[in-house]
Protein backbone atom coordinates (compact mmCIF):
# COMPACT_ATOMS: atom_id res chain seq x y z
CA UNK A 1 0.00 0.00 0.00
CA UNK A 2 0.95 3.63 0.20
CA UNK A 3 3.41 5.00 2.65
CA UNK A 4 0.94 5.95 5.34
CA UNK A 5 1.72 4.37 8.68
CA UNK A 6 -1.45 5.58 10.37
CA UNK A 7 -4.55 6.46 8.48
CA UNK A 8 -8.01 7.52 9.57
CA UNK A 9 -10.42 7.31 6.66
CA UNK A 10 -13.74 9.18 6.96
CA UNK A 11 -13.93 8.46 10.67
CA UNK A 12 -17.05 9.65 12.41
CA UNK A 13 -17.82 9.11 16.07
CA UNK A 14 -20.88 10.36 17.89
CA UNK A 15 -21.61 10.40 21.61
CA UNK A 16 -25.36 10.83 21.65
CA UNK A 17 -26.02 14.21 20.05
CA UNK A 18 -22.35 15.21 20.24
CA UNK A 19 -20.26 14.57 17.19
CA UNK A 20 -16.75 14.03 18.51
CA UNK A 21 -15.24 13.23 15.14
CA UNK A 22 -16.92 14.36 11.93
CA UNK A 23 -15.59 12.61 8.84
CA UNK A 24 -11.97 12.85 9.95
CA UNK A 25 -9.30 12.01 7.41
CA UNK A 26 -5.79 11.90 8.71
CA UNK A 27 -2.69 10.18 7.50
CA UNK A 28 0.68 9.99 9.14
CA UNK A 29 3.51 9.06 6.80
CA UNK A 30 6.16 6.51 7.59
CA UNK A 31 8.87 7.98 9.82
CA UNK A 32 7.04 11.22 10.29
CA UNK A 33 6.25 13.03 13.52
CA UNK A 34 2.80 14.47 13.18
CA UNK A 35 1.05 16.57 15.75
CA UNK A 36 -2.67 16.56 16.23
CA UNK A 37 -3.30 20.00 17.64
CA UNK A 38 -6.53 21.41 18.99
CA UNK A 39 -8.24 22.89 22.01
CA UNK A 40 -9.70 20.55 24.61
CA UNK A 41 -12.93 19.00 23.44
CA UNK A 42 -12.03 19.31 19.76
CA UNK A 43 -12.09 15.54 19.28
CA UNK A 44 -8.36 14.88 19.15
CA UNK A 45 -8.57 12.42 22.04
CA UNK A 46 -11.39 10.58 20.31
CA UNK A 47 -9.32 10.38 17.14
CA UNK A 48 -6.40 9.01 19.16
CA UNK A 49 -8.63 6.48 20.88
CA UNK A 50 -9.87 5.33 17.48
CA UNK A 51 -6.25 4.57 16.64
CA UNK A 52 -5.61 2.76 19.92
CA UNK A 53 -8.87 0.87 19.61
CA UNK A 54 -10.43 2.10 22.81
CA UNK A 55 -13.08 3.76 20.68
CA UNK A 56 -14.72 2.09 17.71
CA UNK A 57 -15.74 4.64 15.07
CA UNK A 58 -19.39 4.74 14.03
CA UNK A 59 -18.29 5.18 10.44
CA UNK A 60 -15.01 5.02 8.60
CA UNK A 61 -11.95 2.82 8.89
CA UNK A 62 -8.64 2.92 10.73
CA UNK A 63 -5.45 1.64 9.12
CA UNK A 64 -2.08 0.98 10.70
CA UNK A 65 0.75 0.14 8.32
CA UNK A 66 -1.78 -0.43 5.55
CA UNK A 67 -3.78 -2.96 7.53
CA UNK A 68 -7.39 -2.26 8.42
CA UNK A 69 -7.39 -2.50 12.23
CA UNK A 70 -10.84 -1.02 12.82
CA UNK A 71 -12.02 -4.27 14.40
CA UNK A 72 -8.73 -5.33 15.95
CA UNK A 73 -8.65 -5.09 19.77
CA UNK A 74 -6.23 -2.63 21.39
CA UNK A 75 -3.77 -5.22 22.64
CA UNK A 76 -3.21 -6.66 19.17
CA UNK A 77 -2.45 -3.34 17.47
CA UNK A 78 1.27 -3.30 18.31
CA UNK A 79 1.29 0.29 19.49
CA UNK A 80 3.58 2.23 21.75
CA UNK A 81 1.88 4.91 23.74
CA UNK A 82 2.91 7.61 26.19
CA UNK A 83 0.20 8.92 28.47
CA UNK A 84 -0.48 12.35 29.90
CA UNK A 85 -0.52 11.06 33.48
CA UNK A 86 2.38 8.67 32.73
CA UNK A 87 0.16 5.66 33.59
CA UNK A 88 3.09 3.60 34.85
CA UNK A 89 2.28 0.45 36.78
CA UNK A 90 2.66 1.63 40.38
CA UNK A 91 3.36 -1.85 41.76
CA UNK A 92 6.26 -2.50 39.41
CA UNK A 93 9.78 -1.13 39.39
CA UNK A 94 11.07 0.93 36.50
CA UNK A 95 12.68 -2.23 35.13
CA UNK A 96 9.47 -4.24 35.42
CA UNK A 97 7.46 -1.44 33.84
CA UNK A 98 9.69 -1.36 30.80
CA UNK A 99 9.84 -5.15 30.73
CA UNK A 100 6.05 -5.48 30.77
CA UNK A 101 5.42 -5.32 26.99
CA UNK A 102 8.21 -7.87 26.46
CA UNK A 103 6.90 -10.13 29.20
CA UNK A 104 3.45 -10.00 27.57
CA UNK A 105 5.04 -10.89 24.22
CA UNK A 106 6.96 -13.76 25.84
CA UNK A 107 10.32 -12.48 24.65
CA UNK A 108 13.04 -14.87 25.93
CA UNK A 109 14.56 -13.82 29.24
CA UNK A 110 18.11 -13.03 28.05
CA UNK A 111 17.01 -10.95 25.11
CA UNK A 112 14.45 -9.26 27.30
CA UNK A 113 17.04 -7.98 29.71
CA UNK A 114 19.11 -6.57 26.88
CA UNK A 115 16.13 -4.79 25.33
CA UNK A 116 15.04 -3.30 28.64
CA UNK A 117 18.51 -2.01 29.40
CA UNK A 118 18.77 -0.60 25.88
CA UNK A 119 15.51 1.26 26.34
CA UNK A 120 16.59 2.54 29.76
CA UNK A 121 19.90 3.69 28.33
CA UNK A 122 18.03 5.54 25.63
CA UNK A 123 16.36 7.71 28.27
CA UNK A 124 19.38 7.75 30.59
CA UNK A 125 17.57 5.95 33.41
CA UNK A 126 19.70 2.78 33.78
CA UNK A 127 20.56 3.61 37.35
CA UNK A 128 16.89 3.90 38.30
CA UNK A 129 15.94 0.39 37.20
CA UNK A 130 15.05 -0.77 40.70
CA UNK A 131 13.11 2.36 41.69
CA UNK A 132 9.35 2.46 41.94
CA UNK A 133 7.51 5.06 39.84
CA UNK A 134 6.44 7.10 42.87
CA UNK A 135 10.11 7.58 43.80
CA UNK A 136 10.70 9.42 40.54
CA UNK A 137 10.01 12.98 39.47
CA UNK A 138 7.40 13.72 36.83
CA UNK A 139 9.98 14.12 34.12
CA UNK A 140 11.67 10.83 35.04
CA UNK A 141 8.32 9.05 35.14
CA UNK A 142 7.51 10.30 31.68
CA UNK A 143 10.87 9.16 30.38
CA UNK A 144 10.12 5.70 31.76
CA UNK A 145 6.75 5.92 30.01
CA UNK A 146 8.64 6.63 26.81
CA UNK A 147 10.96 3.67 27.37
CA UNK A 148 8.01 1.38 28.01
CA UNK A 149 6.39 2.56 24.79
CA UNK A 150 9.54 2.10 22.70
CA UNK A 151 11.05 -1.06 24.20
CA UNK A 152 9.42 -3.52 21.81
CA UNK A 153 9.96 -1.39 18.71
CA UNK A 154 6.30 -0.74 17.96
CA UNK A 155 5.13 0.25 14.49
CA UNK A 156 3.93 3.62 15.70
CA UNK A 157 4.37 5.73 18.77
CA UNK A 158 1.40 7.64 20.11
CA UNK A 159 1.91 10.46 22.56
CA UNK A 160 -1.13 11.82 24.38
CA UNK A 161 -0.23 15.23 25.81
CA UNK A 162 2.90 13.70 27.32
CA UNK A 163 4.27 16.95 28.67
CA UNK A 164 1.22 18.71 30.05
CA UNK A 165 1.70 17.32 33.55
CA UNK A 166 5.22 18.73 33.76
CA UNK A 167 6.29 22.20 34.76
CA UNK A 168 7.12 24.76 32.09
CA UNK A 169 10.89 24.51 32.11
CA UNK A 170 11.00 20.74 32.11
CA UNK A 171 8.37 20.70 29.40
CA UNK A 172 10.65 22.61 27.10
CA UNK A 173 13.64 20.36 27.78
CA UNK A 174 11.58 17.20 27.31
CA UNK A 175 10.17 18.58 24.08
CA UNK A 176 13.61 18.50 22.50
CA UNK A 177 14.49 15.21 24.09
CA UNK A 178 11.41 13.57 22.62
CA UNK A 179 12.00 15.17 19.23
CA UNK A 180 15.57 13.97 19.26
CA UNK A 181 14.67 10.45 20.35
CA UNK A 182 11.99 10.06 17.72
CA UNK A 183 14.16 11.25 14.86
CA UNK A 184 17.04 9.09 16.04
CA UNK A 185 14.84 6.01 16.06
CA UNK A 186 13.07 7.00 12.85
CA UNK A 187 9.79 5.85 14.31
CA UNK A 188 6.41 7.08 13.09
CA UNK A 189 4.81 9.19 15.79
CA UNK A 190 1.52 10.91 16.37
CA UNK A 191 1.69 13.54 19.05
CA UNK A 192 -1.54 14.90 20.51
CA UNK A 193 -1.42 18.26 22.22
CA UNK A 194 -3.28 21.50 22.82
CA UNK A 195 -0.03 23.45 23.10
CA UNK A 196 0.67 25.22 19.82
CA UNK A 197 4.26 26.06 20.71
CA UNK A 198 4.91 22.37 21.33
CA UNK A 199 3.30 21.46 18.03
CA UNK A 200 5.35 23.97 16.05
CA UNK A 201 8.60 23.03 17.75
CA UNK A 202 8.23 19.27 17.44
CA UNK A 203 6.48 18.29 14.32
CA UNK A 204 7.19 17.48 10.74
CA UNK A 205 3.56 18.20 10.07
CA UNK A 206 0.70 19.55 12.14
CA UNK A 207 -2.97 18.70 11.85
CA UNK A 208 -5.14 21.36 13.46
CA UNK A 209 -8.43 20.10 14.75
CA UNK A 210 -11.52 22.01 15.76
CA UNK A 211 -15.04 20.92 16.65
CA UNK A 212 -14.50 17.35 15.49
CA UNK A 213 -12.97 18.31 12.14
CA UNK A 214 -9.48 18.64 10.79
CA UNK A 215 -9.15 22.28 9.79
CA UNK A 216 -5.74 22.21 8.18
CA UNK A 217 -2.78 19.90 7.74
CA UNK A 218 0.63 21.24 6.93
CA UNK A 219 4.19 21.86 8.02
CA UNK A 220 4.55 24.11 11.08
CA UNK A 221 5.68 26.83 8.72
CA UNK A 222 2.61 26.54 6.49
CA UNK A 223 0.27 26.42 9.45
CA UNK A 224 1.81 29.46 11.03
CA UNK A 225 2.39 31.55 7.91
CA UNK A 226 -0.63 30.62 5.85
CA UNK A 227 -3.49 29.58 8.06
CA UNK A 228 -6.49 28.65 5.97
CA UNK A 229 -9.15 29.50 8.49
CA UNK A 230 -9.71 32.05 11.18
CA UNK A 231 -9.63 29.29 13.77
CA UNK A 232 -6.21 28.05 12.73
CA UNK A 233 -4.80 31.56 12.60
CA UNK A 234 -6.25 32.42 15.98
CA UNK A 235 -5.23 29.19 17.66
CA UNK A 236 -1.64 29.36 16.55
CA UNK A 237 -0.15 32.62 17.68
CA UNK A 238 -1.47 36.16 17.70
CA UNK A 239 -3.50 37.49 14.81
CA UNK A 240 -5.07 40.58 13.33
CA UNK A 241 -8.27 40.02 11.39
CA UNK A 242 -9.47 42.93 9.32
CA UNK A 243 -12.90 42.58 7.75
CA UNK A 244 -13.18 43.90 4.20
CA UNK A 245 -14.69 43.52 0.75
CA UNK A 246 -12.79 42.40 -2.35
CA UNK A 247 -12.95 45.24 -4.90
CA UNK A 248 -10.86 43.69 -7.62
CA UNK A 249 -8.32 40.98 -8.28
CA UNK A 250 -5.28 41.91 -10.38
CA UNK A 251 -2.36 39.61 -11.12
CA UNK A 252 -3.04 37.46 -8.08
CA UNK A 253 -3.45 40.43 -5.76
CA UNK A 254 -6.79 41.20 -4.22
CA UNK A 255 -7.65 44.81 -3.57
CA UNK A 256 -9.61 44.86 -0.36
CA UNK A 257 -11.63 47.81 0.89
CA UNK A 258 -11.70 48.32 4.64
CA UNK A 259 -13.75 51.43 5.36
CA UNK A 260 -11.95 54.09 3.33
CA UNK A 261 -8.67 52.18 3.25
CA UNK A 262 -7.57 49.93 0.43
CA UNK A 263 -5.32 46.95 1.09
CA UNK A 264 -3.34 44.89 -1.41
CA UNK A 265 -3.34 41.26 -0.37
CA UNK A 266 -2.24 38.06 -2.17
CA UNK A 267 -5.51 36.45 -3.24
CA UNK A 268 -6.32 33.03 -1.80
CA UNK A 269 -7.67 30.27 -4.00
CA UNK A 270 -11.35 30.87 -4.58
CA UNK A 271 -11.32 34.58 -3.76
CA UNK A 272 -14.03 36.38 -5.71
CA UNK A 273 -14.72 40.02 -6.44
CA UNK A 274 -17.40 41.44 -4.20
CA UNK A 275 -16.81 38.85 -1.50
CA UNK A 276 -16.59 39.75 2.19
CA UNK A 277 -13.32 38.38 3.51
CA UNK A 278 -10.88 38.67 6.39
CA UNK A 279 -7.39 39.99 5.94
CA UNK A 280 -5.05 38.27 8.33
CA UNK A 281 -1.63 39.42 9.48
CA UNK A 282 0.50 38.55 12.51
CA UNK A 283 1.15 41.47 14.90
CA UNK A 284 4.91 41.04 14.59
CA UNK A 285 4.68 41.37 10.80
CA UNK A 286 3.09 44.81 11.02
CA UNK A 287 5.56 47.69 10.88
CA UNK A 288 5.26 51.04 12.60
CA UNK A 289 6.90 54.22 11.28
CA UNK A 290 6.94 57.84 12.29
CA UNK A 291 4.09 59.79 10.76
CA UNK A 292 6.36 61.63 8.31
CA UNK A 293 7.52 58.36 6.75
CA UNK A 294 7.33 58.25 2.98
CA UNK A 295 4.48 56.28 1.50
CA UNK A 296 5.00 52.57 0.94
CA UNK A 297 2.75 49.63 0.13
CA UNK A 298 -0.29 49.13 2.39
CA UNK A 299 0.67 52.00 4.63
CA UNK A 300 -1.86 54.07 6.53
CA UNK A 301 -1.97 56.71 9.16
CA UNK A 302 -3.09 55.71 12.58
CA UNK A 303 -3.04 56.69 16.20
CA UNK A 304 -1.46 54.65 18.99
CA UNK A 305 -4.36 53.78 21.26
CA UNK A 306 -2.58 51.71 23.87
CA UNK A 307 0.81 50.17 24.40
CA UNK A 308 2.02 47.41 26.65
CA UNK A 309 5.64 46.81 27.49
CA UNK A 310 6.47 43.10 27.24
CA UNK A 311 10.22 43.16 27.73
CA UNK A 312 11.67 42.03 24.43
CA UNK A 313 8.70 43.42 22.53
CA UNK A 314 6.25 46.27 22.81
CA UNK A 315 2.62 45.57 22.07
CA UNK A 316 0.74 48.47 20.41
CA UNK A 317 -2.94 48.83 19.61
CA UNK A 318 -3.19 51.24 16.70
CA UNK A 319 -6.45 52.64 15.37
CA UNK A 320 -6.20 53.16 11.60
CA UNK A 321 -9.83 53.77 10.76
CA UNK A 322 -13.08 53.80 12.60
CA UNK A 323 -13.54 50.42 14.22
CA UNK A 324 -10.30 49.09 12.75
CA UNK A 325 -7.75 48.41 15.41
CA UNK A 326 -4.50 46.72 14.55
CA UNK A 327 -2.30 44.99 17.01
CA UNK A 328 1.42 45.49 16.42
CA UNK A 329 4.36 43.93 18.17
CA UNK A 330 7.75 45.50 17.59
CA UNK A 331 11.10 45.30 19.20
CA UNK A 332 11.66 48.30 21.44
CA UNK A 333 14.16 50.11 19.22
CA UNK A 334 11.83 52.83 17.99
CA UNK A 335 9.19 53.80 20.49
CA UNK A 336 5.89 55.55 20.15
CA UNK A 337 3.68 56.96 22.85
CA UNK A 338 0.01 56.55 23.41
CA UNK A 339 -1.93 59.13 21.41
CA UNK A 340 0.90 59.61 18.93
CA UNK A 341 0.16 59.60 15.19
CA UNK A 342 2.04 56.88 13.33
CA UNK A 343 2.25 55.20 9.96
CA UNK A 344 1.23 51.57 9.94
CA UNK A 345 2.58 49.28 7.27
CA UNK A 346 1.04 45.89 6.46
CA UNK A 347 3.62 44.33 4.11
CA UNK A 348 1.73 42.74 1.21
CA UNK A 349 3.65 39.50 1.39
CA UNK A 350 2.74 39.02 5.03
CA UNK A 351 -1.00 39.48 4.54
CA UNK A 352 -3.35 36.58 3.86
CA UNK A 353 -6.91 36.39 2.69
CA UNK A 354 -9.10 34.17 4.84
CA UNK A 355 -12.43 33.15 3.37
CA UNK A 356 -15.17 32.57 5.86
Amino acid sequence: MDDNMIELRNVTKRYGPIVANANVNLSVRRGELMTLLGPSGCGKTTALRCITGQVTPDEGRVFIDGVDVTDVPTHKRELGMVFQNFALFPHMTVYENVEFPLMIRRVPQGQRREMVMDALRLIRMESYAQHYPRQLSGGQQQRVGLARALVYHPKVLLLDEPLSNLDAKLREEMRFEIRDLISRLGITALYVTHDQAEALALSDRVAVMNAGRIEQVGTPDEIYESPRSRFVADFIGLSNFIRGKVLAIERGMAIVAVNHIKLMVPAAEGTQVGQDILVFIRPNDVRLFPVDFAKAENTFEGVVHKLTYLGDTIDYRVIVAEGVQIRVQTDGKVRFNAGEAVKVCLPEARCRVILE
Partner: protein
Amino acid sequence: MTALAKRYWHALINQKKLFIYTFLWSFFLWITSPFLIILLKSVGRNWFGKRWLPPELTLDWYKWALTIANIPQVLSNTLIIAAIAVTISTLLALPTGWALGRRKVPAKEVLTSIILLPRMIPPIAYALGIAQIFYRLHLVDTHLGVALAHVAICAPYAILVLSSTFEGLDERVLEAAAVCGASQLRTFFHVTLPLVLPGILSSIIFTFTTSYNEFTLTLMTYGPHTITLPVRTYLAVGEGYWEVTSALSIILIIPSLFVLFMVQRQVQPEKLVGGFKGV
Protein backbone atom coordinates in the same frame (compact mmCIF):
# COMPACT_ATOMS: atom_id res chain seq x y z
CA MET B 1 23.03 36.12 81.77
CA THR B 2 23.18 33.83 78.80
CA ALA B 3 24.39 30.96 80.96
CA LEU B 4 21.45 31.43 83.23
CA ALA B 5 19.08 31.56 80.32
CA LYS B 6 20.62 28.38 78.96
CA ARG B 7 20.28 26.56 82.23
CA TYR B 8 16.74 27.70 82.62
CA TRP B 9 16.01 26.61 79.08
CA HIS B 10 17.46 23.13 79.73
CA ALA B 11 15.32 22.75 82.78
CA LEU B 12 12.33 23.73 80.75
CA ILE B 13 13.17 21.22 78.01
CA ASN B 14 13.70 18.48 80.54
CA GLN B 15 10.45 19.32 82.19
CA LYS B 16 8.79 19.11 78.84
CA LYS B 17 10.40 15.72 78.26
CA LEU B 18 9.37 14.59 81.71
CA PHE B 19 5.85 15.67 81.06
CA ILE B 20 5.71 13.88 77.70
CA TYR B 21 7.12 10.65 79.13
CA THR B 22 4.77 10.73 82.07
CA PHE B 23 1.86 11.30 79.78
CA LEU B 24 2.86 8.52 77.39
CA TRP B 25 3.43 6.00 80.17
CA SER B 26 0.12 6.82 81.83
CA PHE B 27 -1.61 6.41 78.53
CA PHE B 28 0.14 3.10 77.94
CA LEU B 29 -0.85 1.86 81.38
CA TRP B 30 -4.37 3.04 80.96
CA ILE B 31 -4.65 1.08 77.69
CA THR B 32 -2.92 -2.05 78.93
CA SER B 33 -4.03 -2.31 82.56
CA PRO B 34 -7.24 -4.23 81.79
CA PHE B 35 -5.20 -6.76 79.83
CA LEU B 36 -2.59 -6.94 82.55
CA ILE B 37 -5.20 -7.60 85.21
CA ILE B 38 -6.85 -10.29 83.10
CA LEU B 39 -3.47 -11.86 82.39
CA LEU B 40 -2.51 -11.91 86.07
CA LYS B 41 -5.92 -13.19 87.05
CA SER B 42 -5.68 -16.02 84.52
CA VAL B 43 -2.38 -17.32 85.91
CA GLY B 44 -2.79 -16.47 89.60
CA ARG B 45 -3.97 -18.65 92.42
CA ASN B 46 -5.43 -17.43 95.69
CA TRP B 47 -5.25 -13.84 94.57
CA PHE B 48 -7.62 -12.04 96.90
CA GLY B 49 -7.64 -9.00 99.09
CA LYS B 50 -5.20 -6.15 98.83
CA ARG B 51 -2.24 -7.96 97.34
CA TRP B 52 -0.59 -6.26 94.33
CA LEU B 53 0.47 -9.51 92.69
CA PRO B 54 -0.87 -13.07 92.89
CA PRO B 55 0.99 -15.18 95.49
CA GLU B 56 1.11 -18.31 93.32
CA LEU B 57 1.23 -18.85 89.56
CA THR B 58 -0.67 -21.65 87.83
CA LEU B 59 -1.91 -22.71 84.41
CA ASP B 60 -4.85 -24.63 85.89
CA TRP B 61 -7.41 -22.09 84.76
CA TYR B 62 -6.36 -22.62 81.16
CA LYS B 63 -6.80 -26.38 81.59
CA TRP B 64 -10.22 -25.74 83.06
CA ALA B 65 -11.10 -23.44 80.23
CA LEU B 66 -9.99 -25.99 77.65
CA THR B 67 -12.03 -28.80 79.15
CA ILE B 68 -15.01 -27.22 80.90
CA ALA B 69 -15.57 -24.47 78.38
CA ASN B 70 -14.80 -26.90 75.56
CA ILE B 71 -12.41 -24.48 73.89
CA PRO B 72 -11.46 -26.62 70.86
CA GLN B 73 -15.12 -26.86 69.87
CA VAL B 74 -15.86 -23.20 70.62
CA LEU B 75 -12.77 -21.96 68.81
CA SER B 76 -13.54 -24.08 65.76
CA ASN B 77 -17.12 -22.70 65.78
CA THR B 78 -15.77 -19.18 65.91
CA LEU B 79 -13.33 -19.75 63.06
CA ILE B 80 -15.82 -21.60 60.86
CA ILE B 81 -18.40 -18.85 61.35
CA ALA B 82 -15.81 -16.18 60.66
CA ALA B 83 -14.65 -18.01 57.53
CA ILE B 84 -18.20 -18.27 56.20
CA ALA B 85 -18.94 -14.63 57.06
CA VAL B 86 -15.74 -13.47 55.37
CA THR B 87 -16.42 -15.53 52.26
CA ILE B 88 -20.01 -14.35 51.87
CA SER B 89 -19.14 -10.72 52.65
CA THR B 90 -16.26 -10.69 50.20
CA LEU B 91 -18.31 -12.32 47.46
CA LEU B 92 -21.05 -9.75 48.05
CA ALA B 93 -18.64 -6.85 48.30
CA LEU B 94 -16.54 -7.57 45.18
CA PRO B 95 -19.26 -6.77 42.63
CA THR B 96 -20.96 -4.17 44.85
CA GLY B 97 -17.69 -2.39 45.53
CA TRP B 98 -16.78 -2.54 41.85
CA ALA B 99 -20.10 -0.99 40.86
CA LEU B 100 -19.93 1.69 43.54
CA GLY B 101 -16.30 2.47 42.92
CA ARG B 102 -16.06 2.34 39.15
CA ARG B 103 -19.48 2.68 37.60
CA LYS B 104 -21.88 5.56 37.42
CA VAL B 105 -24.54 4.42 39.82
CA PRO B 106 -27.61 6.61 40.29
CA ALA B 107 -28.08 7.86 43.87
CA LYS B 108 -24.70 6.48 44.89
CA GLU B 109 -24.65 8.37 48.19
CA VAL B 110 -28.07 7.08 49.20
CA LEU B 111 -27.07 3.53 48.31
CA THR B 112 -23.87 3.83 50.30
CA SER B 113 -25.72 5.06 53.36
CA ILE B 114 -28.19 2.21 53.10
CA ILE B 115 -25.34 -0.27 52.86
CA LEU B 116 -23.71 1.33 55.89
CA LEU B 117 -26.95 1.37 57.89
CA PRO B 118 -26.26 -1.89 59.76
CA ARG B 119 -23.08 -0.31 61.07
CA MET B 120 -24.81 2.85 62.18
CA ILE B 121 -27.72 1.45 64.16
CA PRO B 122 -27.19 -0.70 67.28
CA PRO B 123 -27.09 -4.41 66.34
CA ILE B 124 -29.37 -5.29 69.24
CA ALA B 125 -32.12 -3.31 67.51
CA TYR B 126 -32.25 -5.54 64.48
CA ALA B 127 -30.68 -8.69 65.94
CA LEU B 128 -34.12 -9.52 67.31
CA GLY B 129 -35.60 -9.28 63.83
CA ILE B 130 -32.87 -11.45 62.44
CA ALA B 131 -33.46 -14.00 65.21
CA GLN B 132 -37.19 -14.20 64.46
CA ILE B 133 -36.64 -14.72 60.75
CA PHE B 134 -33.90 -17.27 61.39
CA TYR B 135 -36.10 -19.27 63.78
CA ARG B 136 -38.62 -19.61 61.00
CA LEU B 137 -35.96 -20.58 58.48
CA HIS B 138 -34.31 -22.99 60.96
CA LEU B 139 -31.08 -21.08 60.65
CA VAL B 140 -30.66 -20.54 64.37
CA ASP B 141 -27.87 -22.62 65.88
CA THR B 142 -26.28 -23.34 62.51
CA HIS B 143 -22.86 -22.06 61.46
CA LEU B 144 -24.38 -20.62 58.31
CA GLY B 145 -27.10 -18.83 60.29
CA VAL B 146 -24.74 -17.15 62.72
CA ALA B 147 -22.40 -16.27 59.87
CA LEU B 148 -25.26 -14.76 57.87
CA ALA B 149 -26.15 -12.58 60.85
CA HIS B 150 -22.50 -11.47 60.95
CA VAL B 151 -22.60 -10.62 57.25
CA ALA B 152 -25.02 -7.80 58.11
CA ILE B 153 -22.16 -5.93 59.74
CA CYS B 154 -19.20 -7.49 57.93
CA ALA B 155 -20.37 -6.77 54.40
CA PRO B 156 -20.64 -2.99 54.87
CA TYR B 157 -16.99 -2.93 55.95
CA ALA B 158 -15.96 -5.01 52.98
CA ILE B 159 -18.00 -2.93 50.54
CA LEU B 160 -16.59 0.29 51.92
CA VAL B 161 -12.97 -0.89 51.72
CA LEU B 162 -13.34 -2.52 48.32
CA SER B 163 -15.25 0.32 46.68
CA SER B 164 -12.54 2.77 47.66
CA THR B 165 -9.90 0.28 46.52
CA PHE B 166 -11.56 -0.07 43.14
CA GLU B 167 -12.17 3.65 42.91
CA GLY B 168 -8.46 4.22 43.36
CA LEU B 169 -7.66 1.88 40.50
CA ASP B 170 -6.54 4.12 37.64
CA GLU B 171 -8.39 3.35 34.43
CA ARG B 172 -5.51 4.75 32.39
CA VAL B 173 -3.07 2.26 33.91
CA LEU B 174 -5.31 -0.53 32.66
CA GLU B 175 -5.46 1.15 29.26
CA ALA B 176 -1.69 1.34 29.27
CA ALA B 177 -1.54 -2.41 29.84
CA ALA B 178 -3.82 -2.98 26.85
CA VAL B 179 -1.74 -0.71 24.63
CA CYS B 180 1.35 -2.62 25.79
CA GLY B 181 -0.27 -5.70 24.32
CA ALA B 182 -1.91 -7.33 27.33
CA SER B 183 -5.27 -9.02 26.77
CA GLN B 184 -8.00 -8.42 29.34
CA LEU B 185 -7.13 -11.63 31.12
CA ARG B 186 -3.43 -10.83 31.36
CA THR B 187 -4.17 -7.23 32.34
CA PHE B 188 -6.28 -8.64 35.15
CA PHE B 189 -3.59 -10.97 36.46
CA HIS B 190 -0.57 -8.73 35.95
CA VAL B 191 -2.00 -5.32 36.73
CA THR B 192 -5.52 -5.21 38.16
CA LEU B 193 -5.14 -8.02 40.68
CA PRO B 194 -1.77 -6.94 42.15
CA LEU B 195 -3.12 -3.42 42.51
CA VAL B 196 -6.33 -4.38 44.31
CA LEU B 197 -4.94 -7.30 46.32
CA PRO B 198 -3.87 -5.18 49.31
CA GLY B 199 -7.39 -3.73 49.44
CA ILE B 200 -8.97 -7.18 49.27
CA LEU B 201 -6.62 -8.45 51.98
CA SER B 202 -7.40 -5.59 54.31
CA SER B 203 -11.11 -6.11 53.62
CA ILE B 204 -10.73 -9.78 54.56
CA ILE B 205 -8.83 -8.90 57.73
CA PHE B 206 -11.44 -6.31 58.69
CA THR B 207 -14.36 -8.66 58.14
CA PHE B 208 -12.60 -11.54 59.85
CA THR B 209 -11.90 -9.59 63.02
CA THR B 210 -15.40 -8.13 62.96
CA SER B 211 -16.96 -11.57 62.82
CA TYR B 212 -14.47 -13.01 65.31
CA ASN B 213 -15.27 -10.30 67.85
CA GLU B 214 -19.00 -10.09 67.20
CA PHE B 215 -21.10 -10.61 70.30
CA THR B 216 -24.61 -9.15 70.03
CA LEU B 217 -25.61 -10.80 66.77
CA THR B 218 -24.16 -14.13 67.89
CA LEU B 219 -26.04 -13.94 71.16
CA MET B 220 -29.34 -13.72 69.29
CA THR B 221 -28.66 -16.54 66.84
CA TYR B 222 -26.42 -19.04 68.56
CA GLY B 223 -27.36 -22.39 70.07
CA PRO B 224 -25.55 -25.19 71.87
CA HIS B 225 -23.72 -26.20 68.68
CA THR B 226 -22.62 -22.75 67.65
CA ILE B 227 -21.23 -21.12 70.78
CA THR B 228 -18.45 -18.74 69.85
CA LEU B 229 -15.57 -17.48 71.96
CA PRO B 230 -17.04 -14.08 72.90
CA VAL B 231 -20.33 -15.68 73.89
CA ARG B 232 -18.58 -18.45 75.81
CA THR B 233 -16.57 -15.88 77.70
CA TYR B 234 -19.73 -13.98 78.53
CA LEU B 235 -21.40 -17.17 79.77
CA ALA B 236 -18.38 -17.95 81.91
CA VAL B 237 -18.84 -14.62 83.64
CA GLY B 238 -22.34 -15.74 84.56
CA GLU B 239 -20.98 -19.00 85.91
CA GLY B 240 -18.88 -17.00 88.34
CA TYR B 241 -15.41 -18.40 87.70
CA TRP B 242 -13.41 -15.22 87.32
CA GLU B 243 -10.13 -16.99 86.82
CA VAL B 244 -11.49 -19.23 84.07
CA THR B 245 -13.16 -16.25 82.45
CA SER B 246 -9.84 -14.42 82.47
CA ALA B 247 -8.13 -17.40 80.87
CA LEU B 248 -10.88 -17.44 78.21
CA SER B 249 -10.37 -13.75 77.56
CA ILE B 250 -6.68 -14.28 77.00
CA ILE B 251 -7.43 -17.14 74.60
CA LEU B 252 -9.91 -14.82 72.87
CA ILE B 253 -7.26 -12.13 72.48
CA ILE B 254 -4.46 -14.28 71.05
CA PRO B 255 -5.80 -14.68 67.49
CA SER B 256 -6.50 -10.93 67.28
CA LEU B 257 -2.92 -10.19 68.26
CA PHE B 258 -1.79 -12.70 65.69
CA VAL B 259 -3.82 -10.96 62.97
CA LEU B 260 -2.47 -7.59 64.05
CA PHE B 261 1.07 -8.94 63.87
CA MET B 262 0.41 -10.46 60.47
CA VAL B 263 -0.95 -7.20 59.10
CA GLN B 264 2.15 -5.40 60.23
CA ARG B 265 4.61 -7.94 58.89
CA GLN B 266 3.04 -9.54 55.84
CA VAL B 267 1.22 -6.75 54.07
CA GLN B 268 4.08 -4.72 52.65
CA PRO B 269 3.47 -1.11 53.56
CA GLU B 270 4.93 0.20 50.29
CA LYS B 271 2.21 -1.60 48.39
CA LEU B 272 -0.53 -0.24 50.64
CA VAL B 273 0.71 3.30 50.99
CA GLY B 274 2.05 5.11 47.96
CA GLY B 275 -1.29 4.99 46.36
CA PHE B 276 -2.84 3.33 43.41
CA LYS B 277 -2.85 6.51 41.37
CA GLY B 278 0.51 5.86 39.83
CA VAL B 279 1.90 9.25 40.76
